[in-house]
Structure formats: structure tokens, C-alpha cells
């Protein structure tokens, strides 16, 4: 599906979506911003809708913007080979979002990584535990911008 058709289709599904242009969509992919509340239902539609068929979540990550967190989901369709980037703003003090590991199984591991690195709480995740950090880790989330480790971090 071409980017414009994709945009129309997505606007149909989710009227509140706003699309990003320019440098923030430099990869040439349709990039949309949305609210965390609508995410699970929308994600289910993205996977189930036969004309979209986004069955491959190839990247899931988070960016700490100091004022808020942004979840970034990169989607691909193995049938149509169109891509979509979904960005969702989260409250930095109490980041919570629905888990999509039931829709894309790869999200289970990626969400666990984001959970410990950014402290995002994924609701209804089947197994939300520490994956990389050692057991009994106390302190801040390593990939947040205010994390500081005077011993191990490179300072230039």
C-alpha cells in the first residue's frame, strides 16, 4: 500500500491519529502519533485488518525526551511490504501502556528490555521481570537520561 493510501486507511481506523512529516519520518515510512489508551485496540486492528496485515514488529523501543517518554513501534507487513512507525507519548513519572506481546510475540522480550531500561510498565504482560539487569537491581533505569553511574560511564 502506498503511503497516502496507508494514511487514509489509518485515519479511518483511528481518527485521532496525527502524522509526522519531515526529518522525524526520514526513513520514508508513515509515522503517526497516538494516545496510549487506544493502542491495544488499534494494534489488534493493524495486525488483523486484511488490507493492512502488519504482522511483523521489527523494532520496539523507547526514547527518553526528559519531559516525557516516547514508545516507538516499527511495523512491517510481510504480505504487502509496507511499513509504519507508531509513536506513543507516555507520562515520564508513571509510564504505563498495554502490552502487545499477545499480538506480536517478539514484543515479549523487547518489552521486558524496555521495562528495565526505561521503567515503562506494560500492562497485561505475561512475564514482566528483569531480563538483562541483575536480580535485585536497585536504582534508576539505565537508559533514561538522568541515569548516572560515576564509575562505569564514559564522560567525554
Amino acid at each position, binding site marked *: 500500500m502506498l503511503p497516502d493510501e496507508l494514511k487514509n486507511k489509518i485515519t479511518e481506523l483511528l481518527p485521532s491519529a496525527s502524522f509526522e512529516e519531515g526529518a522525524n519520518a526520514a*526513513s520514508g515510512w508513515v509515522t503517526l502519533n497516538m494516545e496510549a489508551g487506544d493502542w491495544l485496540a488499534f494494534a489488534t486492528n493493524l495486525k488483523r485488518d486484511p488490507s493492512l496485515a502488519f504482522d511483523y514488529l521489527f523494532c520496539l523501543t523507547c526514547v527518553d525526551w526528559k519531559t516525557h517518554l516516547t514508545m516507538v513501534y516499527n511495523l512491517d507487513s510481510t504480505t504487502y511490504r509496507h511499513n509504519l512507525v507508531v509513536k506513543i507519548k507516555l507520562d515520564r513519572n508513571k509510564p504505563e501502556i498495554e502490552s502487545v506481546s499477545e499480538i506480536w510475540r517478539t514484543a515479549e522480550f523487547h518489552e521486558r528490555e524496555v521495562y528495565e531500561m526505561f521503567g515503562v510498565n506494560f500492562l497485561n504482560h505475561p512475564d514482566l521481570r528483569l531480563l538483562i*539487569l541483575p536480580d535485585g537491581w536497585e536504582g534508576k533505569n539505565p*537508559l533514561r537520561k538522568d541515569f548516572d553511574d560515576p564509575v562505569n560511564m*564514559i564522560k*567525554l
Partner: protein
Amino acid sequence: MYRETEIVTDMGNDLVINVGPQHPATHGVLHLVITLNGETIKKVEPHLGYIHRSIEKMCESLTYRQFIYVTSRMDYLSAHINNHACALCIEKGLGLEIPPRAQAIRVLMDELTRIASHELWWGAMAMDLGAFTPFFHAFRERETITDIMEETCGARLTMNYMVPGGVMQDLHPSFQQKVKDFLVLYKRKIHEYDEMVTGNVIFQNRMKNVGYLSPEDAISYGVTGPSARGSGVKCDIRKLYPYEIYDKLQFDEVLETGGDSFARYMVRLREMNESIKIIEQLIDNIPEGDFQAKTKAVLKLPKGEFYTRVETARGELGVYIVSEGGTTPYRIKFRSPGFSNLSVLDHIARGSKLGDLVAMMGTLDLVIPDIDR
């Protein structure tokens, strides 16, 4: 604030063993907690982080020229391709045009790396299954590739040869001859791989119908690379989203439909031949010209977000750079193939024997620094 790993106290009839962090079959510090019922696997639970260096955090304080070198330490067997992915992403941000000679050199090096990586995998996997000899036979060919790399790049494993705008220096004068010698050697010896391992009855029994992965699961779990192509999923980034000069080259995407360990094994073996094809097309046709585009000494990416996908020896590597317009990335994310490939291990291992686990881990081709980053 975090939920803790639950410590198993009541095991009932199950036997819980720790495979790793030091274990001969994990080839690194992977830690798998395996619940067994006799010899049958009930659950595989990976515990990661033993060599997590937080490369993503590290990169936030390194400049665009510097951070490429750190990525060699992710998937050290396809270090070239990791460097390549980062260089591509930076070039995408800068809007740089790469000279044709540099593109050809990059592709040549990528494919040589892929062959070297698959050869190491072949030897190591056979060793996991108890056959020690193939390891040394694989190294005979791999050694010639590392020699070629050493001559041109100055290093054998973490080459650091790709820089934004091209490659660091021109090819060594004897590069073409050496590569041709390697092609001759490879073609003379490749049949030994089939005679020694592929055709062996014990080996086929160990591999066939072991660790079946359906195409749907492969996509859903984000499995990429040869592991997914063994299930018949078209996922070769070189074909789907061509970068550099891959769209001008003649090669096939290797697909097997078995979905079991043997299919994944065959994909990798056949993929080596495809890489040889690419090298043969390029080796006599390296264009003359610059090996590097003119770039500024200090690179500054414009504000924005850039994502590139490349095909490493293990699957799809994604590099996601968020730039605030400075000399260092604001946030960088590496979508490593190993991390997603590992996540499927529990799914395919349940119900099979402990001995099958090494066959599955072998054919998923896990490189631990790639998983941990």
C-alpha cells in the same frame, strides 16, 4: 520497584538445571534455566545480561565517527556488517552519496564476512553435536578470509573498516588475487562439508524434525535471517529493501520450507554459495575512483530520526538514531537479530530432548554479545 526473578523452591517432579553462564554449548555467557522432566524439556528461560555493556548508552556520549567502532563488539562475527549498518544510517542522515568503488568494496567485505561467519557457525554447530573435526576444517577456509581482512583492514575480527562516507582506506594491492585464490580453495573444499556432516546419518537424525518453527511463528517472534528462511519466510533485507548495490547483483534468496533445524542448516550452507556468487560478480568489476566521499571532520546529523535495516549473517540488524542536531546521537537503538531469535527458543524447544537443545541453539546461530549488546 522491579519484579524479581522468582526462585524455584518447590520443583515437584521437575529437574531444573542451569545451562550457562559457563557452558560449552552456549558459546558465550548465555544463561538458560531449563526445566526438565527426565530428558524432556518443559521450559527454557533465558537470563541475559552477563556481558551487557549497554552499548546503546555508551553511544550516546560518543561522536558519530566514534560509535561505529563500538558496534564491532556486538555481533563480532559479522563486525563488518554492523559497521556497515551504522555507516549507512549516518549517511542517510547526512544525505551523503557514496562513491561506487566504496559501495563495491563494502558489499565485497560484507559477503566475505558472511561466509566467514557461516563457516564458524558450521564448525561450532557440528562441535555442539559431538563431531569435533568439522571445526578445524571450517577454520581452514575461514583463516584465508581473516588473512584477507587483516591485509586490507589491519584486523582479523573487529575490522572497523567502514566509516561514514565509504571505507577507511583503499584495498590492499593483492586483495583481488587473494580473494580469487580463496574462491578456488572454497570450491575445491566445499564438497567436504557435505561429505563430512550433511550426509551423515547420525547428523540428519539429530537435525530433522527437531525444533520446528512455523512461518507464522517465525514472523510473530521476529525471527529473521537464515533461521526464518529455513521456515520459508522471505526476509532477506538485501532483496526486500536493497541497500548499496545489492539490487544490481544477481543472487537468490535461499529459502527452505522444512522449518526444522535441518532446513535452517541447509539455508546457511546454500547461502555461502550465494555469497560466493556475489563475490565472483564483483571481484573483477570493482569500479575505479574514490574509496571515500568527502566528509567534514566533525559530523553533525540534522535533527530527526533515522532508521536503517541491513542483513547480517544472523538476520536483520536495525539501527535507529534519534538526533538532536549535535555531534553525538541523542538516542540510539540497535535492533539485533540475536535478541529476537533467542526469544523463540523456548517456543521451539518445549517437548524435545535435552540433546536437541544444542541442535536448536546451534541452528539459531546465537552470538551472545549480539543478544546482550
